[in-house]
């Protein structure tokens, strides 16, 4: 059999939400990662836990993008679609590349299942206009049953193994070894249920051998390892990386980590990951509501912990008043908002960047906070660390924006060493300053304007803070007009001064050209891929991507001035573009916006950029 070399491949595993597609996808991507491929993955699951079987609403998917270089995105369109039933085929047909390979369980192509998936005819392939694609129809369910005919497992458990058959086929096509999935199955099932472990192993091998023996595939494919920096790697998703970044900030500051939070899709994993880390002294309170989530954290911050809270858009709305309290009390706090489709409950499992204005301005009064964002699963660790560093060193709440696609997406991550991270120096006061007869809670550092953090339990430093306007020095309640103006100015200036602690804005590509692509947050990989493609074609396009939003970094104006056109691309109706129009009024901004619950595709970006270049 021929082996064809490929640079990168996108596989989408899809089936009923009970078919084990997330596990199948994860096992495939982990195997590819272990063999040195660049990886980016994205799970795509429905809100319903178990929607009716065989319906499009119940289709769960997992996309793996692997290649011989680091993968910037989970990929747009897929080369291979594994569909466990007609509904999975229907749900994903629009994501097929023109010459894609489709592997579909032949046993599922009965009249009833085809009708249940909403097809009008008995030929789903013709109906979808994909009849000439490379369609492989192994009878996965019956082959699984046949492979397990000697087991004493019940039928339901036998059928549950069919995802391993599909995995076996894929591992063969892409010349991957079985070692990793076999080890995983052993680790997961062998002790708990040896019979199930054995069944999964048998079916995995059966799928692999089926693909080898039947020659239904004209070729197998090989994707060479990526040229990744040497070192030790692990796979990590965005939410996990944020949780771990907070733990790192806690370690480097010497402040115990506290997270008060209320479960909400797609942010819950942050709370879950932190709840596991009692071994590192992390305290989590699963609060009674979103408000209590942030309020317990504010209390913990007052008590001297590094306090964080995690949420998604609707929860951020509920936290608004309390964020104002953190602003006026000038306590360190990190609020993570993993954005999802809105407004209101919106589309909880889909990605969007539409909370930016809420993050910047969604509080009563003059209430500035530091706002920053993550841009890939692996940079979540560093950004969470940075958010903690800024919050504690500048005594301010920080809002860290993530989004569904980053939170759930995973990438291989070169494991950093904590010795390479800076210490975080919180301005903790343990005794009165010279000349101070009682503690002045709002006395500030001349450089950063951060106030001091005197922790309850420290004798002689007793003080009162709260949500009422404070006297500039003593912190006592004040409604003096001039004092209020001074405090409003000072809080704004303190946040603005954070600019001196963040990196100068960078740009991918030349600093001059015809078009500057501007983005922020989790679209970084997609924008960069599109820009890369155009640059290879000789077009004068560069990419300027923002992680720091308030304050904006130094150097933005100089970059923007170098381009004939600027296009701001975001998964909302133009929130960052509006923000830039306020902060950098001298430039004209084109917009490219999408609010479909999905991130950009490289194809649509390239089309848009070409259009702008031709105008």
């Amino acid at each position, binding site marked *: 059999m021929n082996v064809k070399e490929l640079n990168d491949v996108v596989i989408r595993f899809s089936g009923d939400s009970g078919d084990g597609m997330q596990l199948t996808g994860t096992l495939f991507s982990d195997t590819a990662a272990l063999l*040195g491929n660049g990886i980016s993955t994205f799970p795509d699951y429905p809100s319903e836990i178990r929607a009716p079987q065989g319906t499009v609403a119940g289709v769960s998917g997992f996309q793996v993008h692997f290649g011989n270089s680091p993968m910037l995105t989970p990929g747009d369109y897929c080369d291979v679609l594994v569909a466990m039933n007609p509904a999975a085929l229907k749900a994903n047909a629009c994501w097929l590349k023109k010459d894609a390979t489709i592997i579909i369980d032949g046993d599922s192509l009965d009249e009833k299942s085809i009708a249940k998936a909403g097809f009008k005819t008995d030929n789903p392939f013709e109906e979808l206009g994909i009849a000439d694609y490379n369609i492989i129809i192994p009878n996965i369910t019956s082959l699984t049953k046949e492979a397990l005919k000697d087991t004493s497992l019940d039928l339901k458990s036998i059928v549950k193994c069919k995802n391993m058959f599909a995995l076996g086929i894929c591992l063969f096509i892409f010349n991957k070894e079985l070692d990793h999935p076999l080890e995983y199955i052993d680790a997961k099932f062998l002790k708990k249920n040896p019979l199930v472990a054995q069944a999964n192993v048998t079916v995995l091998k059966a799928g692999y051998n089926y693909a080898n023996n039947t020659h239904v595939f004209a070729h197998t494919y090989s994707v060479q390892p990526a040229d990744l920096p040497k070192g*030790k790697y692990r796979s990590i998703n965005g939410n996990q990386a944020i949780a771990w970044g907070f733990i790192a900030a806690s370690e480097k500051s010497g402040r115990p980590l506290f997270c008060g939070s209320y479960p909400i899709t797609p942010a819950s994993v942050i709370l879950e990951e932190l709840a596991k*880390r*009692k071994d590192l002294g992390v305290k989590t309170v699963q609060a009674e509501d979103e408000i209590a989530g942030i309020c317990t954290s*504010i209390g913990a911050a007052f008590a001297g912990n590094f306090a964080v809270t995690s949420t998604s858009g609707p929860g951020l709305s509920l936290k608004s008043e309390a964020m104002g309290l953190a602003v006026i009390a000038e306590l360190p706090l990190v609020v993570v908002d993993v954005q999802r489709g809105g407004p209101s409950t919106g589309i909880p499992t889909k990605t969007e960047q539409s909370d930016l204005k809420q993050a910047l301005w969604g509080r009563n009064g003059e209430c500035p906070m530091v706002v920053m964002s993550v841009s890939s699963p692996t940079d979540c660790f560093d950004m969470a660390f940075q958010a903690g560093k800024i919050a504690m060193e500048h005594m301010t709440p920080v809002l860290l924006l993530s989004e569904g696609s980053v939170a759930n997406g995973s990438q291989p991550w070169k494991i950093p060493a904590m010795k390479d991270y800076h210490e975080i120096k919180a301005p903790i006061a343990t005794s009165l300053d010279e000349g101070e007869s009682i503690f002045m809670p709002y006395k500030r550092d001349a450089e950063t304007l951060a106030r001091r953090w005197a922790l309850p339990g420290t004798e002689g430093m007793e003080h009162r803070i709260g949500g009422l306007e404070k006297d500039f020095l003593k912190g006592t309640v004040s409604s003096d007009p001039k004092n209020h103006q001074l405090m409003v100015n000072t809080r704004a200036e303190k946040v603005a001064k954070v600019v001196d602690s963040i990196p100068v804005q960078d740009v991918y590509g030349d600093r001059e050209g015809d078009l500057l692509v501007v983005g922020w947050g989790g679209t970084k990989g997609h924008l960069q891929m599109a820009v890369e493609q155009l640059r290879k074609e000789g077009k004068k396009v560069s990419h300027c991507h923002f992680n720091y939003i308030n304050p904006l970094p130094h150097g933005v104006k100089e970059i923007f001035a170098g381009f004939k056109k600027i296009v701001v691309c975001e998964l909302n109706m133009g929130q960052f573009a509006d923000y830039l129009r306020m902060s950098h009024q001298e430039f004209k901004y084109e917009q490219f916006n999408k609010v479909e619950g999905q991130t950009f595709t490289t194809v649509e970006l390239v089309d848009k950029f070409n259009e702008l270049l031709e105008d």
Partner: protein
Amino acid sequence: MNEIKYTQADFKSDQEVKYCPGCGDHAVLAAVQRSMAEYGNKHGEKHGNYVLVSGIGCSSRFPYYMKTYGFHSIHGRANAIATGVKTANPDLKVFVATGDGDSLAIGGNHFIHAVRRNVNLNVVLFNNEIYGMTKGQYSPTSKLGKITKTSPFGTVEKPFSPGELIIGSRGTFFARAVDQEVGLLTECITAAAEHKGMAVVEALVNCVIFNNGTHAPYAGDKATRAENTIVLRHGEKMVFGANKDKGLVLDGFKLKVVTIGQDGYTLDDVLTHDAHEKEPYLHYTLASMKYPEYPVALGVIRDVDEPNYDNEVERQIEEVQATSKIKCVDDLLNSGETWTI
């Protein structure tokens, strides 16, 4: 460790107390300051270890008048913030000053969940049955039919009784006292401070401006109180009246007021208060007693020992740390499945 000798004055801040003249909150302030001094002298608890958290409302101005750490927060959230303070640092002695609006309306959820978790907080719930700071609207504890600015024809909603709410949620401590008896108030707050868990003291306070005399029918003066309230003390008979001649007996599932020496009732028939009984039914019934059918119960009604949240959090951390191989972030990052390139 007992070298400290605090008095009430040691807990007064330099801020002028701005409660209205005649407001019941003055009494609570004095009682809390006395309790802190007493508790401090007994346990060696210093100024710097006390934290007073409050929400919004007249009562919530409290922290400014106290020479302790203080956090005057936002409306309704005092119990949530205090939960964070106490969980973050269980060595602190955390008090909450809150009102009937703060903890039973806007912050009701945090209040019941703090009770459910049994967080080790000392909550003083100022109940004046009115919204004073917003100038006279009815509160969730206003009596049915109460005429206020927002109920010009009288309320048509049933009030909460904080004691029923707390004991109904199997809270571990509930006490009640009136503003005019600073001694009993201090006794209750000190008992709350000694309690390991969520301790709520309901202070029946008079809002002299917007709800003057709301508690007067049973608590107006010493003579009225003697006849219409009953002070419960653990291990003592449930007797009341100026001559201590009335008592409570159990009649089926209900309490009944009897006169000792009449209808064949003797002191032996009168119930003895057991504040430590875990089953909440009798405590609930005692807390539910309403004037004029019954005397209003004062004193420590319920005080039971159960695991508290902040201790359990610490215990779990110690247990996990004893066995986990992950001791630092580097261990964590290198745990689980990794590969080398």
